[in-house]
């Protein structure tokens, strides 16, 4: 669901500007990318097994981020609103998972094959709960502000985010809550020191079908067509008989469901959830969405995997890695640099806001 192309805008690249000499700002950007690649290359040569192990960790984290990032990008694509509350919905998804899984279905470690249907049922319930929550947020907090200045819903989104965070706090308390470690952690293969465990594969195995289902929904169904039309031009979509409000609600429902799925994966993979994690992870996922080009579904996935890898490399590599203390600073630096150097993201189109 890409943003509408800007036809006659000064910032859109024309033939004359496209082949211009690289400007100072893009040179700086290229130098930074080159430095990053050099650093990765040195690490690869020095300790290849560590490099690939860390890459696999990053890829797994990236899959979880992808689900959250897609939620941001779906909502941004249709409303041009950064839904700050999305990260907190994701966090509540983790809490729903733990509550439904352990209290409703009695999920615990070492149940054998029974775990599969339980996790599946928990996934569905968690997706449903988060989807309804997200749609409810849209109904209460964003819909009355459709015609307000653009900053109004953005500010409201921050408020909603804080409220949901405190709902989590009131519900589960200020400490980490733990999920049963149900994904087996035995190794699938160990190739010259590059280990790959089952729990990582399971995360990927749950993410990919969800992503494919989403792509099918957006690209091949009537509802998806309505979503794309609404994203392009709401008035024209309304004239064509699309119920714009219902389409927007549906988009929020889908985005919330993705956050619910991500919450399940995160809570069962990392096995701890705390009320204030959602906002930080949400911002990282938002960075991923911007990285790939906001409003662009494949871009969000690509950006999420890249961000996941960058985070893992930062925390895991041995040669001059800044370490986990700096993860957030690095991710936000990337966000700022993308917005400065390439605001349309890796796969996005150039828009007036970004240009």
């Amino acid at each position, binding site marked *: 669901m890409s943003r509408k192309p800007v036809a006659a805008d000064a910032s859109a690249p024309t033939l004359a500007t496209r082949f211009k000499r690289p400007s100072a700002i893009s040179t700086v950007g290229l130098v930074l990318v080159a430095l990053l690649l050099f650093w990765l290359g040195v690490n690869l040569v020095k300790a290849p097994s560590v490099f690939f192990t860390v890459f696999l960790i990053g890829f797994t984290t990236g899959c979880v981020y992808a689900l959250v990032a897609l939620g941001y990008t779906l909502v941004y694509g249709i409303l041009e609103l950064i839904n700050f509350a999305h990260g907190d919905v994701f966090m509540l998804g983790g809490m729903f998972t733990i509550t439904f899984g352990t209290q409703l279905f009695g999920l615990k470690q070492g149940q054998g094959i029974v775990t599969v249907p339980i996790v599946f049922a928990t996934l569905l319930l968690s997706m449903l709960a988060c989807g309804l929550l997200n749609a409810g947020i849209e109904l209460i*907090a964003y819909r009355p502000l459709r*015609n307000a200045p653009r900053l109004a819903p953005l*500010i409201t989104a921050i408020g909603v985010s804080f*409220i949901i*965070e405190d709902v989590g706090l009131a519900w589960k308390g200020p400490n980490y809550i733990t999920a049963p470690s149900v994904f087996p952690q035995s190794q699938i293969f160990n190739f010259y020191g590059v280990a790959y465990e089952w729990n990582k594969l399971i995360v990927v195995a749950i993410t990919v079908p969800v992503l494919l289902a989403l792509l099918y929904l957006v690209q091949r169904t009537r509802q998806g067509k309505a979503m794309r039309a609404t994203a392009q031009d709401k*008035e024209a979509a309304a004239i064509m008989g699309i119920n714009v409000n219902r389409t927007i609600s549906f988009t929020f429902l889908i985005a919330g469901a993705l956050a619910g799925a991500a919450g399940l994966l995160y809570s069962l993979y990392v096995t701890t959830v705390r009320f204030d994690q959602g906002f930080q992870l949400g911002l990282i996922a938002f960075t991923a969405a911007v990285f790939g080009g906001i409003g662009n579904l494949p871009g969000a996935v690509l950006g999420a995997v890249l961000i996941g890898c960058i985070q893992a490399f930062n925390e895991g590599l041995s040669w001059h890695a800044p370490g986990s203390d700096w993860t957030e600073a690095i991710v936000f*630096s990337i966000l700022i640099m993308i917005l400065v150097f390439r605001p349309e993201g890796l796969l996005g189109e150039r828009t007036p806001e970004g240009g």
Partner: protein
Amino acid sequence: MTEHQEEIAATDDDGAIHDNVGIRNELRARWQALAFKERIAIVVGLELVLAALLFFIDHSLGFAVVTVAALYWINRLPPLPWKLAGQALLVAVFLVAGPRSLAVVLAVAFATFWIPKQYRVWAGPAVAIVLAVLYPFYQSKMFTVPVFGVWPDVATGVYMIVFVMMAVGLNIVVGYAGLLDLGYVAFYATGAYTAAWFASLQFAHVTWHFGAVGIDPKLPGIHVTIWLLLLLAGVITALFGIIIGLPTLRLRGDYLAIVTLGFGEIIYDVARNSDNFIGTGFNLTNGPNGITPLDSIGFGNSLSHWTGGLLPANYLSCCNAKYLGHQIQSTDLFFWTAIVLLLITVFCSLRLQYSRLGRAWIAIREDETAAAAMGIPLMRTKTWAYASGAFFGGVAGAYYAVFKSATFPGDFYFNISVFILCMVILGGMGNITGVIVGGAFLAYLNEEGLANTGAWINANIHIGSHHPNLDVPLYASGIYGLIILIVMLFRPEGLIPSRRVAAEMHEGVHDEPLYDIAHAGSDG
């Protein structure tokens, strides 16, 4: 336009059609059909019932409701002689029966409102300033407010003023120029750390003194007088604002918001992790332990001696004087200094508002494209907004760090940015009075109010012997979120709005409004 206003508009235009549609309109129609006296009787009756109910929860709350209702009705009486008589009666009642301090407060408030309108523009703020300056003298004698408890102490007053300064600074960026800044805490942090670097033992390998008071002249570290540091912190923070602004201000609206948010988080990370600055081993911020203690503030011995002790040599080791039955303490001095700083901030902000620059900001806020077409240099104007907002944030941050004699990275978390933004939104974007009131109220809530309210709830609201035992301050950020949500939904222009912002909020100046299918066509 929100749904509610839409409905009012609809009934105004063709009332007959819409009158009986919906329970809300029907109720309104019935209410309007009542006679004036009946309406008053109903309202007074409801107020009395409410007061009676609350009386059983907490006696003083019941009295408070009656008092507020009485104030409201007295205010609606014809001025002479009834209003005056009512006010005199109310003051007399409290003089005899209730807390005497409340009687005095009411008398002062009534007297202020009797000042003719053309002088009130000056007299109102003047009375407010005098009351604020005298606050340390009468704070301990004030009555207890139901739910909120005792009046804030003077240290809380300093905290409130510092945060009001920051809110006024943020108002320049958000309220005047319409640039949503979610990383204002970065400026607060920059100011605080500037003060901490140049007035503490942090850089112990250097020994450099410049007018610092109250310390051994051979003490290692950089020690610059705080007065200069306040200015320096402002300037450095303004430069920092420009550095942040230059690459990012090209972006519009929400992108700018997210970038400033990112900068705020980066600054927090830098503050937290820079006891080993980027792996060089250089201790820049002393990490999570923060920098403490900071040098004291003061005018120095010679200046103090020269003014006959009027200006204290050192705020922390001052004060054996006793005026009006009040022992002057160092906190009082910090409080008065803060008031002076706030007055400077407000003065600058007011002067900026209708200056050439201020009008350019408003033009950019309302329509960036049109402003650019009228020849306003966008980048330079926005950067100035950023720099001015940052300047006051830096001064406030430096002053607060000196007051606390410490800076910790935990003070500069994202919550604080939203907290300051909440002050601006609650009070009314673009309106100085609103921002001051909103900022003072929220800062009070954060420092004392929420704890007091929580204690009140836990003590008075119970079912049988079951007390809720709520830890209200724990949910502070959620409460601010709720305030933001409620204000944005029901009164987006804030409690004390600027007329211009209110018009923008209701008409919508956004060049590409988010489309609303339900109300399409009814605006036209």
